[in-house]
C-alpha cells in the first residue's frame, strides 16, 4: 500500500473520524486496558500494519520465523493434545483418574505430584504432615510409579510430568516403569517440566541452589540425547510466572529469558545446541485477555526462532521451533459463583488454540475450592472437544493474522519483551536477577497493581466486585481424607522392608560420589531408583554435596 493518494485520503478520513467520535459517548470506564494494564486504542487500521514486512515478520506456517504457527498444516494435520494436569491422593486413586480421562477421550497424560514429592521429602518425613496427596499424587519409590501407570502402555501414551527440583528422579522412575513394561527408553515420549529457574522466580518449589540445579538439568539433557531422544527435557514455563501476578509481557520475557539461560548452560557444558534445543518446549498461561494472549503466543514463536538462529547459531530448523503447552489461568477463576469459571476457561482455551498451542489443559470450575471432582474434570475436557469439533476454528491456520489490532499487539508485546531482555542483561543475567530479587519484585508489583485495580473497580470481576450474590455454593467437592497419608506411609514402610537395603546403600553412596565428581548424575540416579531407593533418600544423598536454597523474604 504505497500509493500516496490512498494514504492521503486515509489520513484525512481517520482524522475526521477521530474528531467526530468526540460527539459520541466515550464510555463509562475510566480506562480501556488489557488484563496486563496496557492501554488499548479504540480502533486500529492499516497505518500501523506494514504489508511489505509480511515475509520477514509473519511468513508462512511451518516457516521462519513461525509467527503463524510451527507446522505447515497446523490443526488440519494434527490436533492439539488434550492433556489434563491431574493427580491426587494415592497412586491407585490417580491411576483410576487417568483411566477415567483416557476413556473420556484425553490423548496425553500430565502428572501432578503432591508437595512432599515436589520438594523431595518422603511421605513419612515430618515436613510432609498434612500435605500428602493433597496437591497431587504422592510418590516415594518406583513402586508408586508402577501403580500410577498400571494398565497404561507407555509405548503408546505421551506423559508430561510437572516436577522440577527432583525431575531427574521422577524421569528415572518413569524410565524404570518402561523397562518393567518392556518399553525401551528410546520409545518413551513425554515432557518434564524441569524448569528450576521459574521455581526461584515464581513457583517456589526448589531444593538445591541454582548452580547444582543447572548441572542436574544439563546432565539430564545429555542423558536424554543418548537414551531418551524423544523426550522433551525442559518445559520452560511462563505459567507460574503469570499465576504469581506477572503481566503478559513479563510472562513472555521472563520465560524466554529463562530459555536463553538454559541454552547458554547447554552450550557452556559442551553440548551441541542442535542436539538439545529441539527437545526444549514451553508452557504458557492462557489468561482472560483474549487478543493479548494470542499476540503473546505469536510473538513468542518469532522471538525464539530469531534468537536461536541468529544469536545461538542453531542450524537445525527444529531448534528454532517454539512448541508450547497451554493451561488456562487458575488465577482468573473465582471462588464466588464457581460455575462462571466454565465460561472463563472456555474463552481462555480458545485463545490458546487461536494462538497455535500444541497441547492444552483446561481448568475445572471447582479448583478455587478444592481438587476437581470427576464431573468438573470431564466438563473441562469437553470444553476442549467442543472447541475442536464444533466451533470451526481448526479449519484455517492463524485466522487472526492480518488483524490490525492483533498484529499491533504482537509487535508491542515483542518490543516489551525485548526491553526486558536488555534490562536483564544489564543486570547481569537471569541468575543475578533472581539473586537480587529483581524478577520476583517486578511480578509482585504487577500482582499488587492488579489487585488494586479490582478494588478500585477499574476492573470488574463478575461475582467478585460486581454482580455479587450471596447464594450458597452447591457443587460437590473432592476431599482427600486422612486415610491417604496412612496408606501411603504404610506402603512406603513395606518397600523399605522388602527391598535389598545393601544395594540401596551402595547405589546411594555411588550417587554421592558421582555428585562430588563430574559424572552424569542421571545415570547414578537411575541405578538408585531401580533398587527402590526412595525419593527422599536420593535427595539426601545429593544435599550434602549440593547444599540447600533459601530465599530472602521480599514483598
Amino acid at each position, binding site marked *: 500500500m504505497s500509493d500516496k493518494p490512498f494514504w492521503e485520503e486515509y489520513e484525512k478520513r481517520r482524522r475526521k473520524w477521530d474528531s467526530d467520535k468526540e460527539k459520541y459517548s466515550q464510555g463509562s470506564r475510566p480506562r480501556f486496558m488489557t488484563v496486563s494494564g496496557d492501554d488499548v486504542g479504540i480502533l486500529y487500521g492499516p497505518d500501523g500494519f506494514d504489508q511489505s514486512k509480511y515475509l520477514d515478520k509473519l511468513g508462512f506456517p511451518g516457516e521462519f520465523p513461525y509467527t503463524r504457527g510451527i507446522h505447515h498444516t497446523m490443526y488440519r494435520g494434527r490436533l492439539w493434545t488434550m492433556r489434563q494436569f491431574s493427580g491426587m491422593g494415592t497412586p491407585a486413586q490417580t491411576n483410576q483418574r487417568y483411566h477415567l480421562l483416557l476413556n473420556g477421550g484425553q490423548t496425553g497424560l500430565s502428572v501432578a505430584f503432591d*508437595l*512432599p514429592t*515436589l*520438594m523431595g*521429602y518422603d511421605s513419612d518425613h515430618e*515436613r*510432609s*504432615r*498434612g*500435605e500428602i496427596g*493433597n*496437591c497431587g499424587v504422592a510418590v516415594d519409590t518406583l513402586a508408586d510409579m508402577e501403580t500410577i501407570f498400571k494398565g497404561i502402555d507407555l509405548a503408546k501414551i505421551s506423559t508430561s510430568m510437572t516436577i522440577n527440583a527432583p525431575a531427574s528422579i521422577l524421569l528415572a522412575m518413569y524410565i524404570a516403569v518402561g523397562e518393567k513394561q518392556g518399553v525401551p527408553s528410546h520409545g518413551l515420549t513425554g515432557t518434564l517440566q524441569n524448569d528450576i529457574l521459574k*521455581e526461584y522466580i515464581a*513457583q*517456589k*518449589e526448589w531444593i538445591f541452589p541454582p548452580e547444582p540445579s543447572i548441572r542436574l538439568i544439563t546432565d539430564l539433557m545429555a542423558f536424554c540425547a543418548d537414551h531418551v531422544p524423544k523426550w522433551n527435557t525442559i518445559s520452560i514455563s511462563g505459567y507460574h510466572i503469570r*499465576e*504469581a*501476578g506477572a503481566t503478559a509481557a513479563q510472562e513472555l520475557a521472563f520465560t524466554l529469558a529463562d530459555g536463553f539461560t538454559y541454552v547458554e548452560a547447554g552450550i557452556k557444558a559442551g553440548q551441541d545446541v542442535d542436539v538439545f534445543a529441539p527437545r526444549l518446549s514451553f508452557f504458557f498461561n492462557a489468561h482472560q485477555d483474549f487478543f493479548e494472549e494470542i499476540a503473546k503466543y505469536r510473538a513468542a514463536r518469532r522471538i525464539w526462532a530469531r534468537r536461536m538462529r541468529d544469536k545461538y547459531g542453531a542450524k537445525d530448523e527444529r531448534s528454532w521451533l517454539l512448541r508450547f503447552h497451554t493451561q488456562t489461568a487458575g*488465577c482468573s477463576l*473465582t*471462588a*464466588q459463583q464457581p460455575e462462571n469459571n466454565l465460561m472463563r476457561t472456555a474463552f481462555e482455551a480458545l485463545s490458546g488454540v487461536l494462538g497455535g498451542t500444541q497441547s492444552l489443559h483446561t481448568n475445572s470450575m471447582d479448583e*478455587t*475450592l*478444592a*481438587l476437581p471432582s470427576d464431573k468438573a474434570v470431564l466438563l473441562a475436557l469437553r470444553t476442549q472437544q467442543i472447541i475442536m469439533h464444533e466451533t470451526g476454528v481448526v479449519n484455517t491456520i492463524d485466522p487472526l493474522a492480518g488483524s490490525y489490532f492483533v498484529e499491533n499487539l504482537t509487535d508491542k508485546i515483542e518490543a516489551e519483551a525485548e526491553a526486558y531482555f536488555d534490562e536483564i542483561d544489564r543486570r547481569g543475567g537471569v541468575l543475578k536477577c533472581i539473586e537480587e530479587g529483581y524478577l520476583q519484585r517486578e511480578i*509482585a508489583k504487577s*500482582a*499488587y497493581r492488579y*489487585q488494586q485495580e*479490582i*478494588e478500585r473497580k477499574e476492573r470488574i*470481576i463478575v*461475582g*467478585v*466486585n460486581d454482580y455479587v450474590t450471596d447464594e450458597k*455454593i452447591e457443587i460437590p*467437592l473432592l*476431599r*482427600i481424607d486422612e486415610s491417604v497419608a496412612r496408606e501411603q506411609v504404610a506402603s512406603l514402610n513395606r518397600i523399605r522392608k522388602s527391598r535389598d537395603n545393601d544395594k540401596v546403600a551402595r547405589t546411594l553412596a555411588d550417587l554421592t560420589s558421582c555428585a562430588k565428581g563430574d559424572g552424569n548424575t542421571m545415570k547414578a540416579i537411575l541405578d538408585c531408583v531401580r533398587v527402590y531407593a526412595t525419593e527422599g533418600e536420593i535427595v539426601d544423598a545429593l544435599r550434602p554435596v549440593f547444599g540447600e536454597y533459601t*530465599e*530472602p*523474604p521480599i*514483598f
Partner: protein
Amino acid sequence: MSEKIRVLLAKPGLDGHDRGIKVIAAAFRDAGFEVIYTGLRQTPEQIVTAAIQEDVDAVGVSILSGAHMTLFPAILKLLRDQGGRDILLFGGGIIPDEDIVALEKMGVAKLFTPGAATTVIIEWLKQAAAARTKDDKLL
C-alpha cells in the same frame, strides 16, 4: 488506638504460592501496619516463636495447599502453649466452607477465601485488634 498494628505474615508447610500473602503484605504496609513477613516454608514452631519474639498483635497465615486442617490447629495450640493466647490468628487460602466453620470454632479468629478485598481484610484487622486492646484493658 494510637499505636500501629503489628502483624506477622507467614507461609507454613511446603506451599510455595506466595502471590496472595505478598499482596496482603503490601496492602497492610500501605494501610500503615507494621508488617513482618517470614517468607516461605515456616514450621508452626518457627511462626509462633517469631510471633512471640516480635510481640505482634496478629498472625496472618496463607495456605493454598490443602494442609489447613493440620497447620492452623498446630499454630493455634503452640500460641496457647507458649503464652501467645492473646495474639489473633487469621488466615486465607483455598479452604472449603465447612473447614472454615471448624477452624473458627477451634479459635482461628477469621479466614478469608479467594476474592476477598484487601480493604475488607484491613478493616477487619483494625476492628479485631481494637476489640482485643479493649479486652486487655478490662483485664
